[in-house]
């Protein structure tokens, strides 16, 4: 049994994102309940019709989050999941939910994630909570969490392919250009390549503007069976294909003898997704790529098949990635333009893909969009989950 066309996204919702310093009085439960309410209203689905729940809690909460949220909202789901492996978890949750729907475990699944960002430095995961081999063979050498992990990947990429800085900076320019026209974005000041190169060096060769800003917010969406989706308010966005692949542990790019730092598991996750959908990269009208750092966009474009390996930075520099361009990418501004609300960020690529395929993207609408790709990236590119979506079943 394939997941092709068996389920559809029929609504979504987001809370208003806020910088950490403006987050007083907001709570993870409050954020997620609000996003859930907005998504159900958007879909026109009554709470009592929800019989599946996929919820991603804040980083400091354990894997019982979906049960706690079910209690808070008084849901009685017959399918529950708390996918918990970084930014690939949202798309993976959609795959799990789609499989559950098609297996008859449930029919309509609410998916939600979000958290509240605290002022100050990010929580030092990779220090206190890491598994024994990270604690004993990595943390002792003083890494800087995600920043140093992605810095190692970007450095190696630049070494292997002789890539300069312009393509990386263009990823930020594109994100900010979209964010400036997107309603729920925090980094709305357009920037130039020069601005990015002049931003402070944080973790060589990563500069400030290449790194996401954590923020507060939640996002939710509703996935239901294709049959149920025939009679709903919004234009259904069908799940056409999906795949997940990992090649390392969560944070340390050093481990995994076979793993390349510059070819990601997207190669496998995207190949699975395209095969299931019966489509290729050439069929895509846009891509929504998890962009916690600039390097993820460049490697993803290569590994999805939009350009050759090693040419991603140059490809970005010479391609119009805007919503009206030849290959629209991250048309909501991505996380580099919107901010990163942990847990919600996992769902932002698929929600923007849905916004486009429902034809609700307003000034940022990709004309005649039929098929799009949403990618989730977790654990310093170790874990990838790719979805192909469409507003028709080809």
């Amino acid at each position: 049994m394939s997941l092709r066309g068996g389920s559809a996204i029929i609504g979504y919702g987001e809370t208003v994102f806020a910088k950490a310093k403006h987050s007083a009085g907001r709570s993870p439960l409050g954020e997620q309940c609000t996003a859930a309410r907005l998504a159900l209203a958007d879909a026109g689905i009554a709470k009592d019709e929800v019989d599946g729940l996929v919820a991603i809690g804040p980083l400091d909460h354990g894997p019982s989050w979906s049960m706690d949220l079910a209690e808070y909202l008084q849901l009685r789901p017959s399918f529950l999941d708390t996918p918990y492996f970084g930014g690939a978890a949202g798309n993976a949750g959609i795959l799990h939910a789609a499989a559950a729907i098609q297996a008859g475990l449930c029919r309509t699944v609410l998916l939600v994630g979000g958290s509240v960002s605290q002022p100050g430095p990010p929580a030092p995961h990779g220090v206190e909570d890491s598994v024994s081999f990270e604690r004993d063979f990595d943390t002792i050498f003083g890494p800087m969490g995600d920043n140093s992990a992605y810095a190692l990947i970007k450095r190696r990429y630049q070494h292997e392919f002789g890539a300069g800085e312009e393509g990386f900076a263009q990823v930020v320019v594109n994100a900010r250009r979209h964010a400036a026209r997107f309603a729920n974005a925090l980094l709305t000041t357009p920037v130039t390549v020069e601005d990015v190169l002049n931003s402070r060096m944080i973790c060589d060769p990563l500069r400030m503007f290449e790194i996401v800003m954590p923020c507060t917010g939640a996002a939710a969406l509703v996935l239901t069976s294709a049959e149920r989706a025939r009679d709903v308010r919004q234009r259904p966005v069908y799940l056409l294909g999906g795949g997940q692949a990992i090649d390392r542990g969560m944070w340390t790019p050093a481990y995994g003898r076979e793993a390349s730092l510059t070819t990601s598991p997207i190669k496998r996750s995207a190949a699975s997704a395209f095969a299931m959908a019966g489509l290729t990269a050439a069929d895509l009208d846009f891509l929504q790529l998890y962009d916690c750092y600039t390097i993820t966009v460049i490697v993803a474009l290569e590994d999805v098949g939009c350009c050759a390996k090693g040419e991603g930075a140059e490809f970005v520099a010479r391609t119009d990635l805007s919503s009206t361009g030849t290959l629209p990418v991250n048309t909501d501004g991505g996380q580099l333009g919107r901010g990163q609300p942990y847990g919600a960020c996992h769902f932002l690529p698929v929600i923007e893909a849905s916004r486009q395929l429902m034809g609700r993207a307003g000034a940022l609408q990709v004309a005649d969009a039929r098929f799009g790709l949403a990618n989730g990236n977790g654990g310093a590119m170790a874990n990838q989950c790719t979805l192909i979506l469409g507003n028709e079943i080809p």
Partner: protein
Amino acid sequence: MSFQAAYQKPLPQILPETAGFWEATRRHELVVQQCAACGQRQYFPRLLCHRCLSDDLAWAPVSGQGVVYSFTIIRQVLHASFAPDVPYVYAIVELAEGVRLIANVVGIAPEQVRVGLPVKVVFAEVTPEVSLPQFEPV
């Protein structure tokens, strides 16, 4: 004052499967696990071979020679105990034997480090129990 009291940074916990590695670094030797069943070398140490799942593993000395595979310069720290060291180099070193590991590159100005730089292992005696492998230019 003991080593332990003076050293504030995170230390490895010595586990049954990793004790042999840390015993070797105390003698200023770098070892990796080698599988008696299939010959696979692996780092970090595990309870079994990640290739064939055999638990018949032995400690194999390695040259300690390698190259910088990738690196970054840490200027802001997550763990406050590293603050006195900034800027310092956090790197992946690829050993001549083909194993990659995380370590610091020392004995060179951070700005001088390059991918491909030949390095050799040195040992930092941080506590009576633990000597950390570090790398410096050949």
